[in-house]
């Protein structure tokens, strides 16, 4: 193969079916070796959208992100939580190693404001990561978010319902998450690079194992 063709093939917009795409943007190690192994570049894509499809809250979808969030919180930039369904609990975030000084929670009153907030946060370049719980998604708005993430070089994580798995999406990475006995079953629906057929199981750090201790006594 001559060198000019080689250089063309180095272009990040081109990938060959036989191999995983070269990561155009920097990636963020997930903290789970099994997951890093299937993600292009070996981590969460920065400057792109990641879609996490879940059937219900609480199966460990946040624990999947906390190692990367903890790493990001050492850098400048916000970790923006837009329209979270519940309260992100400060003590648990701190326990996961996330610097609370970088956590920003926004609770927009309307859907339109939610989209606006997510887009502004991604585009501003002031956010290391954006976690958004969006409703009423359409492809045009998603594409705007994807472009905003590219502009702001932010890691945009969208939590959406698993029934949207068959819909088209401009997100660079789409993962379907399902509970499994020994952690979280992750199916890669879309990634930059060839498809992944087998689901993989990520062993999450165990949460909430308390021993029978009285809180008053421990203080």
């Amino acid at each position: 193969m001559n060198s000019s063709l080689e250089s063309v093939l180095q272009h990040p917009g081109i990938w060959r079916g036989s191999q995983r795409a070269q990561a155009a943007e920097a990636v963020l190690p997930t903290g789970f070796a099994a997951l890093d192994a299937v993600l292009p570049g070996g981590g969460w894509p920065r400057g792109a959208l990641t879609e996490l499809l879940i059937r219900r809250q609480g199966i460990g979808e946040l624990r999947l992100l906390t190692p990367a969030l903890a790493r990001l919180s050492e850098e400048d930039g916000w970790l923006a939580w837009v329209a979270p369904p519940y309260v992100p609990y400060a003590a648990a975030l701190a326990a996961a190693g996330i610097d609370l000084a970088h956590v920003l929670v926004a609770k927009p009153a309307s859907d339109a404001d939610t989209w606006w907030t997510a887009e502004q946060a991604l585009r501003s370049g002031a956010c290391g990561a954006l976690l958004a719980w969006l409703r009423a998604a359409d492809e045009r708005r998603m594409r705007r978010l994807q472009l905003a993430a590219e502009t702001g070089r932010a890691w945009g994580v969208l939590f959406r319902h698993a029934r949207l798995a068959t819909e088209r999406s401009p997100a660079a990475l789409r993962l379907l998450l399902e509970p499994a006995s020994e952690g979280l079953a992750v199916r890669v629906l879309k990634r930059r690079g060839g498809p992944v057929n087998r689901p993989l199981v990520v062993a999450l750090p165990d949460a909430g194992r308390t021993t029978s201790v009285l809180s008053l006594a421990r203080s």
Partner: protein
Amino acid sequence: MLWLALHFHSLPLEVFTRGAAVSGPLAVAEKLGGRTRVVACNAAAEACGVGAGMAASAAQALADGLVVRQRDALAEQAALEGLAVWAGRFTSSVSMAPPAGLLLEVGTCLNLHRGLGNLLKMARSGLEEVGYAAAMACAPSSRGAWLLARAGVEKAIHEPARLEAILVTLPVALLDQPAGVVEGLDRIGASSLGDCLRLPRAGLARRFGQALVDELDRALGRVPEARAFFEPPARFERALELPAPVHVAEALLFAVRRLLPELEGFLTRRQAGVQELELVCRHERRDATVVKLGFVKPVRDAGRMQLLMHETLGRTRLPAAVHTIVLRAPRVQPLAGANADLFRTQHGEADGDLLLERLRIRLGPDAVHGVETAADHRPECAWRPAQGSKRAAAANRHRPLWLLPDPLPCRDGRLKLQSGPERIESGWWDGGDVARDYYVAEDGDGARLWVYCDRVSGEWYVHGVFA
């Protein structure tokens, strides 16, 4: 010493026009000796044949729809003070030359502004932003620079010899002398400064007064001139009358943009920043609307204020038309100036505070917050929204990542308790008394919940999710 003189030749007109982008034919008239004469007029009026010195009635006959305003000397003085405040961004040595001039000592700040050419460019574009036009001239003596600017000779002169060569050609009418002296000079055939200089000094002083000789000496830089420097006011409050009533808040932005550079100059001069800004919109027969602007940290940059003002005004409804706006900085805080980079580092750095401010304007101040831990055993009291940047963080790995804002009654029999109990009894002193046993429970679908049994009622509740 190098002096920069600014002569605002259209000041009588600009105090009326600078609040709006375009306006119809407008003339400013002044009553002199029983007749009202036009002092200045804008381009639209000039196109109809109106000119300075014309009787106001004649001007009105020439231009259809001409608006004639009475000259407002007080407004001009206030405008000149505003300009002196604005000029504080360039140098701290600003001297006023009423009614329409400013003298800036710039010789000491050329390095700061990367040379005279750059300084002049900044001054010119800055003046355009605040809505004034000026003739600018530089000379080693303040009087000399002022005469050049008055004459419209826009040159930067460093050597006294060159200054003299130009000054001698200027007419004596530019001198700051009584009309009788100028007339007298004209009568003896001395129409330019050069003519005066060629006359015997002693005779000139005897006939026209020492003041004339002194002024000539000062202009040429032979005698130093003592000038009083402008002291900026302690507070910033600047009003701008709008040429026409404004009904839509966003349309106020143009006028606000005129005032923000003055604020920036004020803050630069004082080495300060503002964290709050107030825009007072005055209505006819109604209380004024006050639009407030808050910043995360003290700021000085007019561009940043303008951006947030734009967002704020876009979300403001005016109850009535506005005729005057007042920009007010209630409190200024010390803020060190930014250091310029020796090496050109990468720009376009993201500004986290700006994002925060923009979100707060659109979503409301309470809808955007950080989180921090609080020293309390009750889970709902152990966190709180944080507005500042310092966050308390007490880690507890037995807590769920999601906390339900209101505990949910739980009657699901399929829950399997996995660990616990963790007993929390607290809050008897403030009325929020809790007595609970917390457990980690797993529901049938793979989610792990944080549940508690209320020890008073015996009811079960879900309080968190280990997401």
